[in-house]
């Protein structure tokens, strides 16, 4: 069966109520905006979102806050919940204050590592980041190698929405510059990874040495730009 989907709408059609969805990107770079728009259109409720920045406010106008605004989200796991001036209240913070959305705040490197662990079949790991802070609340602490460390659990999801610069029709992916960020690790951490791609080429069109995400991690591809 071909992995190539004609439209973002078809690619997200089976994301149902209650799903856990990882969303790649950092600010607008590497953010799958077209898939996010399609998901908003489809409108599942009670989603749990895993995303680096969920504060809105960056220059990118299409971000996970469009799902929060649409009332589709029950939980957000993120490291940016407020943005810019610390006095400004974000859409996410407002929703959290109103009791509409639960927020789990995670240090950025811990978030990345929890996602990588999820994709790598590792259950949990110890890290020194966050010791003695709110980020350690309720977590097991152990001294390893003379240093206090906290136990952090892996993250997995039902779907990952990611963005790549180039894909072949098998789903081998290449990212460009700083648009790579969370996309390769999120590609590994879900049952179904859906990649929005700027350029689609035939099999053999990407040198095996250049592949950044091997096709085994990618279920669906939606070309939103050039098709070679």
């Amino acid at each position, binding site marked *: 069966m071909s992995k190539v989907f004609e439209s973002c709408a078809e690619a997200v059609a089976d994301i149902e109520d209650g799903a856990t969805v990882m969303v790649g990107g*950092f600010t607008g770079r590497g953010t799958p905006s077209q898939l996010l728009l399609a998901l908003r259109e489809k409108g599942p409720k009670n989603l749990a979102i895993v995303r680096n920045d969920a504060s809105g406010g960056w220059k990118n106008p299409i971000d996970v806050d469009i799902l929060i605004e649409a009332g589709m989200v029950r939980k957000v796991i993120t490291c940016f919940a407020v943005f810019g001036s610390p006095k400004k209240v974000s859409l996410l*913070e407002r929703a959290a204050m109103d009791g509409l959305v639960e927020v789990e*705040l995670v240090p*950025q*490197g811990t978030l990345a590592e929890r996602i990588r662990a999820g994709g790598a079949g590792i259950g949990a790991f110890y890290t020194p980041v966050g010791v003695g802070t*709110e980020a350690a609340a309720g977590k097991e602490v152990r001294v390893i190698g003379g240093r206090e460390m906290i136990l952090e659990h892996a993250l997995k999801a039902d779907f990952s929405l990611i963005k790549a*610069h180039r894909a072949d029709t098998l789903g081998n992916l290449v990212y460009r510059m*700083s*648009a*790579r960020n969370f996309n390769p690790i999120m590609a590994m951490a879900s049952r179904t990874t859906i990649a929005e791609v700027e350029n689609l080429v035939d099999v053999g069109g990407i040198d095996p040495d250049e592949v950044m995400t091997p096709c085994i991690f990618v279920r669906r591809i939606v070309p939103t730009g050039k098709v070679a």
Partner: protein
Amino acid sequence: MIIMGEMMSDEIMARRVALELSGDCFVNLGIGMPMLVSNHIGTGKQVMFQAENGILGVGPRAEPGMEDKDLGNAGDEHVTVSAGASFMDSATAFDMIRGGHLDATVLGAFQVSEKGDLANWKLPGRKLGSYGGAMDLAAGARKVIVMMKHVTNDGLPRIVRECSYPLTAKNCVSLIVTDIAVIKVVDDGLELCETAPGWTPAQVQQLTEPPLIVRNVSSWPLSVS
């Protein structure tokens, strides 16, 4: 009321911080004021800047019209890359940070305690804040330099006995560069190392909550001011 000297500008603070970054080092600059430091690295130094969104070798900001949509720093600014730069995913970027591979990080702060505790991610009384990469940088970089104004907008000390703001990391700061002084975190407390032009140690102490250790205080190097 004691008449105080003039507070140094952000650019002058950035120039003072830059002096701390000696040749051949890898450095991450926090979002906001610390990013100014990259403009003041002297020639002949091989400082390579890391951005936690996946760049090793961040160059100057992109000229208008030369921006690349896929190339930005962690503060969402269009940047360039320097010779020898590389891109990586977020997990690898934080391996560099958590794994102790960065020589230094420069971070902004709300408060620093006399033990070198850092608070910079959340205002008291707020429901939420943003960790970003600050907790990872504070725990992982070999040297944590804080760059901040010496007092709050209301004139309250930011250098305090105990942080009243939520902590980013305990006992992590090694140097504090403010708009009036350079202060080192040492075993027995905070040592005042330099005062900005027009400031005496006594005046700096007045705006600092814990007692400062005064041994050898010098003026900021002339090249800075």
